[in-house]
């Protein structure tokens, strides 16, 4: 654990930056403007064509996994200190980073299968 701490911190900070720069606009489109009917949803064909483009695939491989690792790193502290679960450190770390890893593998697999 000690040896990969710098790597986990790097993922945390990279993911935080990606989420800060890109999530508000994506969330505004996908989560609010389109469901609320202010904008028309892109057709399946359009999205499919976009997602098969290598640049977009690379973009999604940054956009989804890095913020997941950001969450995995940061969410542990409200659990440790807020809910006073300090004694479960190892279990929480495994669950959080494991979930982020699972999300990363799923993203990669989906992008690979859509090619």
């Amino acid at each position: 654990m000690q040896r990969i701490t710098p790597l986990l911190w790097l993922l945390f900070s990279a993911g935080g930056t990606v989420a800060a720069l890109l999530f508000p606009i994506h969330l505004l489109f996908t989560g609010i403007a389109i469901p609320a009917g202010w904008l028309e949803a892109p057709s399946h064909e359009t999205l499919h064509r976009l997602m098969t483009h290598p640049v977009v695939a690379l973009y999604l491989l940054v956009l989804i996994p890095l913020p997941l690792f950001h969450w995995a790193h940061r969410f542990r502290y409200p659990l440790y200190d807020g809910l006073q679960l300090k004694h479960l450190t190892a279990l929480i770390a495994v669950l959080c980073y494991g979930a982020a890893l699972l999300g990363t593998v799923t993203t990669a697999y989906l992008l690979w299968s859509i090619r």
Partner: protein
Amino acid sequence: MSADPHYTLYHPRWYRRRVSVWWWLRKRSYARFVLRELTSVFVAFFAVIYLWQLWAVVQGPDAYARFLARLRTPLFLALDAVAFLFVLFHAVTWFNLTPKAMVVRLRGTRVPDAVIIGLNYAAWLVLSGMVAFVLLRA
């Protein structure tokens, strides 16, 4: 911490005051700290939504239509609205923290905090514009 502690008659146990799980609501700055850390939950929430969309598109037009219909439900609209506010809170606190995490020197002098923060906001504006452009044209 692993071994069971032994208590003797005259040294029953260490005194440790129990702190309420809600300690962070007592002070504004504590609450801000916990709320800031909790923004990560909404960051993950949206990452999962995007992953879900990717999955739906891979599955085909029917799954994609179901995904769109699900996001139109009041539950998801409300969740997304709350998530949007938390993600904005994350962005603002993150940008304002950058000069503390990263000290940049240019020709021997430290670049002022305001410049680094300003560059962050400028990058935010430019990138948001680019994403909006691509999504609107698509």
